[in-house]
């Protein structure tokens, strides 16, 4: 067994999938813009608009990538996004002095929900689909019941997050970029990242290697909830006041899972990363933008999106099979 040398395949790790997917998305977007004569979409404004479409879903999906990598999943993010948006606008009541307390309170709520999710999944041994569906339902229910008492609007100054920018680049895009780089760095270069991959790839092996797997799973859930919180704050800034349905209407729970999986992160955990997820988000954003240019109606749009999700995952399945054989 020492005679044959392991063939050093070019590291097929996330990047090629991400590059391919991003290329496809951009190509599609450009082609549709040219075909419909909306050449303005290819200028600075159009590109910024396209990237801005990525922000809300992108932020949730970054967090979702952590939980999926660790072999779990989080269905409570949509409800949490709504809760954060509502809470932020209620606490601020248009008062700029309350921006910081509102943000801290919102992130505190996310921390709490993330801890509950993590404890249920990691220590309670409850299936993550059920556990996070449950916490999501609870958050959604409490929110809907108490919304009457939670009216309010965010401060004008806070809306800069959604509408302001430097040198023509909106703050929201910078936020997504910075958080993406941070997430990629954490997953690729830190101890915590290595443990996330270990626990997702082989929980029993990781435990025997001395990793406290429960803590890693718990932390991943907290990360996911905090990213959902970031997304909720961004939506509150954009919409001025939150409603209990913005998360649900945006289908952020299922779409964040879809883009993560399209980006090559496997649901079983242990393989994937941030680059792929962002490419998946870009795909969704360019599809949206292209469908708008084409004037496709909302229902057909939904159908096409669904078909593309299935096709993308099927392509992954075929590719992986090809590797095995």
């Amino acid at each position, binding site marked *: *067994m*020492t*005679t*044959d*040398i*392991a*063939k*050093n*395949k070019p*590291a*097929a*790790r996330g990047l090629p999938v991400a590059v391919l997917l991003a290329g496809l998305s951009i190509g599609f977007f450009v082609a549709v813009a040219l075909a419909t004569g909306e050449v303005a979409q290819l200028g600075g404004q159009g590109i910024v608009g396209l990237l801005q479409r990525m922000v809300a879903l992108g932020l949730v999906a970054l967090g979702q990538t952590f939980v999926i990598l660790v072999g779990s999943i989080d269905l409570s993010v949509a409800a949490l996004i709504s809760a954060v948006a509502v809470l932020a606008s209620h606490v601020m009541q248009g008062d700029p002095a309350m921006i910081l307390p509102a943000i801290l309170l919102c992130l505190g709520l996310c921390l709490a929900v993330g801890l509950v999710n993590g404890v249920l999944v990691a220590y309670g041994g409850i299936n993550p689909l059920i556990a996070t569906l449950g916490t999501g339902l609870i958050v959604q229910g409490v929110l809907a019941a108490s919304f009457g008492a939670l009216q309010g609007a965010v401060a004008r100054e806070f809306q800069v997050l959604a509408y302001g920018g430097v040198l023509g680049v909106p703050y929201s895009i910078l936020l997504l970029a910075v958080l993406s780089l941070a997430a990629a760095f954490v997953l690729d*270069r*830190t*101890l*915590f*990242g*290595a*443990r996330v*991959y*270990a626990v997702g*790839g*082989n929980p*029993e*092996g*990781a*435990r*025997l*290697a*001395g*990793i406290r797997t429960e803590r890693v799973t718990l932390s991943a859930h907290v990360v996911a909830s905090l990213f959902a919180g970031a997304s909720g704050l961004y939506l509150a800034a954009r919409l001025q006041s939150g409603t209990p349905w913005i998360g649900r209407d945006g289908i952020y729970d299922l779409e964040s899972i879809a883009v993560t999986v399209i980006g090559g992160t*496997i649901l079983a955990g*242990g*393989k994937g990363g941030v680059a792929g997820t962002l490419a998946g988000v870009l795909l969704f954003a360019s599809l949206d933008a292209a469908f708008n240019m084409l004037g496709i109606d909302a229902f057909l749009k939904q159908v096409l999106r669904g078909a593309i999700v299935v096709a993308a995952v099927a392509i992954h399945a075929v590719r992986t099979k090809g*590797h095995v054989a």
Partner: protein
Amino acid sequence: MTAAPALSMSGISKAFPGVRALDGVDFDCLPGEVHAICGENGAGKSTLMKILGGSYRPDAGEIRLAGANVHFTHPRQAAEAGISIIHQELSLLPHRTVAENIFMGREIARRGILDRAAMRETAAALLCRIGAQIDPQAPVSSLSIAMQQLVEIAKALLLDARILVMDEPTAALDERDSRALLELVGTLRGEGVSIVYISHRMPEVTAIADRITILKDGRKVWTRPREAAPIGEIVRAMVGRDLEDFYPPPPASPPGAVLLAVKDGANAALRDIAFDVRAGEIVGVAGLEDSGKGALAQALVGDAPFSGGTVALRGRPVALRTPRQATAAGIGYLPGDRKREGLALRQSVRDNALLTLRSMAGLFTRPGRGAFAPRAIDGKLRDMDVRAADFGQEIGTLSGGNQQKAIIVRWLAQASDILVFVEPTRGIDIAAKAAIYRTMRAFADSGRGIVVVSSDMPELIGVADRILVMHQGGISGQLPRGAGEEEVMHLALGLADAPQREARA
């Protein structure tokens, strides 16, 4: 007497609800010694090693490392004390690189930031030390099982383990890789590592061990130096029987008519496959890991079908494009990976035994009648001596031997003519092995045929009437009953001057 034992466990006892797993077991291992533990499944080997590895806490007894008393509460503590356990089931991350795997849980990091360059270098040095030419940057999924095993060993050596426990390290390896692994064990012993070696393969144990300890039913039977422990003695101590009746006697009458005939069989992994199986015959298939012996089994059962050539059953040509066609034609399959491919672990013994019958039944067959009746299948299970408190219990709770027997019942119920066994006794203890060999013989003696693919050479030699040896996707030769391991190896390695002894019965 001169060297202090690197490891000494004394009076170790451990009870689980309803079972006394260990009862006052003493065990020690000197520096630079290979100490083998033998015993049937359930004898307490795994429990003893889990106590040593910190996964379980003993009810009584003490563990001393180089004379100092230790108590472990988490596997990490045992690892830090210099104990490394290479588990039977590989614990690698397939999508990560070799270096990342070697450092799993023990990454080199400064303030939480990984030092990848340092990990790569250390991994390369470790791999070099064990003589493995593996690129630390290669993803583990691109390595063969044998190389993955080497990565496991490198991982174990990372912490400079002074005590290395190897639990069935060769179970998934073929003969050639096993030999290389044994050489490596010898090298590590030379470096002063204490090695605890657990294996069911007797020739390996007697080849490598300095001392041998036998466990039976949670107690130590004896510990002896290798010279004082011939294989016969070991087996007798383990099961209380002699080796002579381990393999069933060869059939008295010559084999009958041709049941299965394969001509020019070929697919991506196979070429020029031609052989036949006669009634009453057990045909063994030997070969190294990548020889195509597994692919042959998969082709016969329609899992990865032949793309060319013809297969005839009882003289009639049959198509074997899918497992369903193979099953309908009368070919049964007993896969090597029982847990994943052979069983529905959470379902009852009875359900598992009925699996094929039910899947081949029509949509409107009434369950619970005729052959489907619990009473009918229970009778068959009892005939096969499947031991379970109740055939309604989950099959996952049974021992490997009993699980294998339940799968045999499944195919007997389907009245298959040919059974294809892959690694029929992997991970199965000696007593159950003998029972499975007897069952195979009885099946063949009833006028049917068996193809058995195995990496365990003594097993093939003991049980098969004829051995086909595969090399690079083709059959490199055939050997009659009574052939030696040397001859099989010769053909398996594809040596040109192989003694071509054709044995057309």
